[in-house]
């Protein structure tokens, strides 16, 4: 109960913070328009050159899939790695460890809270814009779409947090995690379908995207395709498997890391 109360307080406080200082929303909006908008324009052109379909997929499906990736990225869950690294490098970790909280769950809720306002506003605006500009694929109107989208979204949030927390916790051993972060982040971007929609992946890469935690953290991008209707439980199952596995890794890493808290600057 206490954990939930604190989580709600963190979310409320950070939403208030973001509303009061809307710069982040502006930056996030410009970011998504620039990155996602340009990609959609380019893919629209590519699909036109290919007579409207590539590998059996039309632009409509590809566009929503790409949008789901970028919308998810607005949550900035990846930033938890750098926040943990910053805590360790600056010694702020000691401030948080002296409070009656679980450091990791606090950091995770904080990360969700940091991005949730931008995520909700941008996603709502972008859904309306996309709906009126390119329309809605038929797969998004069936009854299981929304509940399974929410399910895979929540699993994706937890998996992303675990994945990037693992990277962040490496700071207890290697201090500068940027090279590891770069590799993991690019793996998530590529296998999650930010550059190329997953439906257009070659078979072997699709398998990697399906079975790796990097791709599994971005399964929201699969929800628009017809295959989702028959495969969703398998994909959610893969996510749950990785959540359990990475959750255990994070737990044991943190237990070991606590004994290695360094005393930067006394």
């Amino acid at each position, binding site marked *: 109960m*206490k954990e939930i*109360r*604190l989580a709600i*307080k963190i979310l409320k*406080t950070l939403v*208030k*913070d973001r509303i*009061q*200082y809307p710069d982040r929303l502006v930056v996030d909006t410009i970011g998504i328009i620039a990155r996602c908008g340009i990609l959609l324009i380019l893919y629209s052109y590519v699909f036109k050159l290919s007579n409207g379909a590539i590998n059996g997929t039309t632009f409509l499906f590809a566009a929503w899939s790409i949008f789901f990736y970028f919308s998810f990225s607005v949550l900035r869950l990846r930033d938890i790695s750098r926040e943990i690294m910053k805590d360790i490098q*600056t*010694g*702020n970790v*000691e*401030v948080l*460890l*002296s*409070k*009656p*909280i*679980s450091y990791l769950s606090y950091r995770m809720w904080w990360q969700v809270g940091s991005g949730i306002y931008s995520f909700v506003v941008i996603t709502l605006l972008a859904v309306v814009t996309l709906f009126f500009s390119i329309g809605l694929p038929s797969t998004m109107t069936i009854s299981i779409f929304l509940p399974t989208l929410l399910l895979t979204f929540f699993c994706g949030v937890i998996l992303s947090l675990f994945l990037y927390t693992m990277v962040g916790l490496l700071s207890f051993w290697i201090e500068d995690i940027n090279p590891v972060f770069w590799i993991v982040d690019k793996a998530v971007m590529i296998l999650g379908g930010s550059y190329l929609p997953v439906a257009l992946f070659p078979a072997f890469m699709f398998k990697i995207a399906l079975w790796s935690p990097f791709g599994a953290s971005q399964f929201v991008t699969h929800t628009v395709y017809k295959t989702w209707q028959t495969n969703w439980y398998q994909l959610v199952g893969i996510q749950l498997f990785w959540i359990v596995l990475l959750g255990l890794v994070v737990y044991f890493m943190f237990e070991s890391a*606590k*004994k290695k*808290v360094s*005393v930067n*600057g*006394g």
Partner: protein
Amino acid sequence: MPETKEIVAVNDISFSVKRGERIAFIGPNGAGKSTTIKMLTGILFPTSGTVNILGFDPTKDRKKLAYQIGTVFGQRSQLLPNLPLTDSLEFFGVMYDMPEKEIKKRIVELVELFDLSSFIAQPVRKLSLGQRMRAEVAASLIHKPKIILLDEPTIGLDVVAKKSLRDLLLKINKEENTTIFLTSHDVGDIESLCDRTIVINHGVVIRDLPTQDLAKTFVYEKYIDLVALSNFNNFPELPEGIRYSSKDKNKVTVVVDINKINVQESLKKLLYLFEVEDIDVYNANLETVIRHIYERDSTRN
């Protein structure tokens, strides 16, 4: 692999603290002060020995202990920078699992006690350092801790802000019987705030005594001011154990090493050398005393 070296940060430290005491835990940089505080709060785990605070073992009961203690790390802020101070106080109230009513009541108390009303509605990042430190201490007291551990709380503050913070700490010690455990390089903090001083160096407690005895116990130098009857025209060589601290035609100050020559003997010899109108004999200030303790301990090692 980079070469690593094992360093013993603290070794065989042992002390106990009574409820309501005000302890200064001092030592030069790298002495082991912060390491000790981190062990007391359960952030660092000692390789051997036991720590017991209010019946809790910090290594096993970190969270339970956290409800009973408050911490202030002078160089690190725990407040929410973009939001008004009141949000930070409410936030910490929830963190300490206090009921909403109690949080509101406590905020009113702290606002009054720490005189926060003039800036409680301002975003924390707009506060002056002095105001922010008051706010930091107030935030750490939201849950009425039995002990407050402060790691260099007055660092960077001007004299007025320092005094104000010290007065507040004395007030909460008096009114709420909060035990104060403080590390500081500022002699003023020790002198005006703490009734007991523990000196640590090279990870070992070298002294544990009432602050008022610190100067008495460690004074092996006396200062003597000699005020000239007319003017001092020459400054003769001084006997062994006495050296000039300052020379002026109106006043000379000398330092007497009482291990080499006692005060009575020094005065006799000085009066033979100088024609004086007035004499003042006094101890070194606390800062000098502490410097001597550190230096002497370093020489021993």
